[in-house]
């Protein structure tokens, strides 16, 4: 096999933390190579080095057998390396064409649009993809945005594609499309690196897999020689069992906690995003809200939590009308909100962990005497939370924004659960988290269900919805297409409701 890329002995330190420890990595021409590991295993760091975003402290990179220095993304692009980041590197207020044209050197200076439009057409015909070149990025779905990223790489004639967690934001059918495209590209001699922590994915599309753990390379294996259990063991360095949900049974109380009736909510553009939606959530029930993102889930959640105005219809919590009474009023009735964008809406990144943990009740005893905060008590309380929820942080004074995604999510949960909620609204609570954090969060949610909380769980991860929910509501195009009891639900049925069939 012809080696297109070799990375030898790559080491990268951030302060005292070693993100990459003498990692060797080789890529063959025309293969899909999985880079597998938990969050924080060093996958993204390694690829950021390859893409010139970070400079390695030690180690060498060879492309086609020649030693290269990659100091910036510019160098990487020159060498034919393209990266599709987890958070898309697209400019929201620009069109598809403008995004593709950005940084493309062989486009004419005047009227670059016309040329790029042609290129996009060529690409979409060759690989049978539809995309409107003049659409604005913020109007596109996650799957479409990713397609734009891939078109960008394609237009730059990249030979090495790096995809960082490409399916995180995609629906199952969009992920299938993506894999189909990757296989076509592979057939044309393009080499692909797939960064992921999803075992199913690597088994489905990869030829070889490199497993990283704790910044070290564990092994590189052929897919044909391994199975999921073996990969999981290598990822976590322990015997982890992938468990199936034992029983699919519904159990919850009769009394209704959240009652939504004929709800209509407008989106940012002033068009109806939630149309005449009605449902109930009972005490001790987890209602899973499945659906492709952008079908009104976000607006629905914002309406229930008081962040968005209700145009028509009503919302009742424990028989009390809370329609349009504002966020504070709703939260004071015992609603916990785990928001979708945890960095932006879940925490104040620059404030310390302890300050973030009391944000829901900082203004009352014992933390405050209505004038001053008692940092002694706050600090003790935060220490308790850190150990109870197993948050890994240096101490309770570190800025919350420096924690990893999983720990931030645990911090948010700890804070939201501290008010003993009657209703928990959880939006994508495990998105982008590693298996262990995901499991901990699932356990917490199930425990709250046992205690009698009503939980609305919004997720694009169907497995998660299936694992936790008592009933599943599927949202499509602003309406609820059906509410299915878990014992009668299966992935195919939900999947077809999700796409409006």
């Amino acid at each position, binding site marked *: 096999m012809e080696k297109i890329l070799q990375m030898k002995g790559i080491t990268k330190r951030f302060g005292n933390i070693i993100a990459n420890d003498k990692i060797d990595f080789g890529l063959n021409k025309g293969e899909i190579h999985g880079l597998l590991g938990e969050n924080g295993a060093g996958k993204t760091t390694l690829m950021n080095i390859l893409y010139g975003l970070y400079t390695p402290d030690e180690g060498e990179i060879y492309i086609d057998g020649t030693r290269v220095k990659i100091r910036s993304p510019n160098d990487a692009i020159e060498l034919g390396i393209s990266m599709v980041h987890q958070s898309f*590197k697209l400019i929201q*207020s620009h069109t598809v064409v403008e995004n593709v044209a950005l940084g493309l050197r062989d486009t004419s200076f005047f009227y670059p649009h016309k040329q790029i439009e042609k290129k996009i057409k060529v690409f979409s015909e060759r690989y049978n993809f539809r995309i409107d070149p003049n659409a604005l990025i913020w109007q596109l779905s996650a799957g479409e945005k990713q397609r734009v990223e891939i078109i*960008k790489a394609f237009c730059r004639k990249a030979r090495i594609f790096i995809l960082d967690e490409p399916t995180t934001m995609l629906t199952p059918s969009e992920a299938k499309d993506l894999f189909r495209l990757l296989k076509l590209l592979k057939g044309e001699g393009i080499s692909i690196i797939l960064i992921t922590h999803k075992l199913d994915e690597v088994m489905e599309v990869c030829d070889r897999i490199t497993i990283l753990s704790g910044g070290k390379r564990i092994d590189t294996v052929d897919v044909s020689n391994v199975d999921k259990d073996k990969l999981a063991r290598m990822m976590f360095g322990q015997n982890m069992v992938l468990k199936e949900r034992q029983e699919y049974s519904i159990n919850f109380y009769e009394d209704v906690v959240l009652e939504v009736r004929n709800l209509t909510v407008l989106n940012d553009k002033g068009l109806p995003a939630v149309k005449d939606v009605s449902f109930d959530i009972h005490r001790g029930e987890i209602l899973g809200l499945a659906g492709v993102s952008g079908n009104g889930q976000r607006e629905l959640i914002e309406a229930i939590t008081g962040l968005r105005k209700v145009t028509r219809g009503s919302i009742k919590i424990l028989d009390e009308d809370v329609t349009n009474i504002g966020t504070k009023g709703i939260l004071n009735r015992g609603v916990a909100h785990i928001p979708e964008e945890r960095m932006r809406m879940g925490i104040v990144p620059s404030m310390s962990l302890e300050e973030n943990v009391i944000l829901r009740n900082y203004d009352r005893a014992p933390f405050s005497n209505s004038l001053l905060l008692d940092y002694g008590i706050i600090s003790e309380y935060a220490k308790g939370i850190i150990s109870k929820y197993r948050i890994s942080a240096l101490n309770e004074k570190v800025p919350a924004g420096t924690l990893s995604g999983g720990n931030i999510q645990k911090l948010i949960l700890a804070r939201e659960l501290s008010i003993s909620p009657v209703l928990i609204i959880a939006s994508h609570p495990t998105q982008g988290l590693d298996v262990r954090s995901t499991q901990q969060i699932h356990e917490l949610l199930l425990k709250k269900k046992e205690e009698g909380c009503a939980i609305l769980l919004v997720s694009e991860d169907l497995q998660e919805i299936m694992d936790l929910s008592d009933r599943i509501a599927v949202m499509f195009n602003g309406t609820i297409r059906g509410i299915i009891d878990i014992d009668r639900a299966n992935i195919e049925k939900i999947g077809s409701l999700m796409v409006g069939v």
Partner: protein
Amino acid sequence: MNFIIEVLKATIPAGTPLLLGALGEIYVERSGILNLGVEGMMIMGAISAFSMTNITGNVWLGVLISIIIGGGMALIHAFNSITLKANQTLSGLALTMLGLGLSGLIGKGYIGVPLSGKLHNLPVYGFKDIPIIGPIFFDQDPLVYISYVLTLIFWFFLFNTRFGIELRSVGESPDVADSAGINVAKIQYLATFIGGMMAGLGGAYLSVVYAPAWIEGMTAGMGWIVLAITIFSLWRPERAILGSYFFGCIRVLQYRLQPLGISPNLLNMLPFIFTILVLMLAAREISRKRISSPSSLGIPYFREKTL
């Protein structure tokens, strides 16, 4: 009717320094840099153009030096905000203070001195006879025509060239532009420099064409109105025309209404009352059309900020 045409004809030169400054500031802000030093760069442009014209007797040399001085001052701001990543608001304000103070010092000897060169009106053959439009737009001085052309060029480059895409991308998300291989600092330096040159040119227009005289502090808040026009124009050069001539018109009315017995103090307030109104109007339009200022406006860009 004649009164209206006369007012509108006077509106164009009154709005031209604003237009020139706004075109420049639009480019600066589109690149993500906020330069509050427009007032300072304008007044330095005004005094340098005036003194150069007086020494050489050539208006065009005066104009040239004002462009150089404006651009040079902008580079100070660029160095502060791009290289040192300092607070852009403070750096811009400092530039304004510097310009106001320094121009006063240099201009001491020029107060009340008549200008030794002059830019004459140059009616455009053929166009000037078009009814209404002709006398308003095409019976003006050469710098006004240059401002028309510059508006066209600024609009065209921003939306129809690769440079325009790069400039707008840098101001929206420098990290995206960076990972696409764009030299963020270079684009920002260039945009800030262009902005300074335009502000200098606007100042020159004020002292050697519009006035033409040197009066200490003669920009009298025009730099701040330029910033308001930049927002009102929603960062689009073609809309800057509208805002600039609107404020130009108010300035003309200030003089025309005075003989009617309206208090001059009230009239002096007019531009600023309208600044507030225009900003309110723009805010409404911005939220209705879902337009926002360049996302990274005023935020210094660091590459390895994660971890």
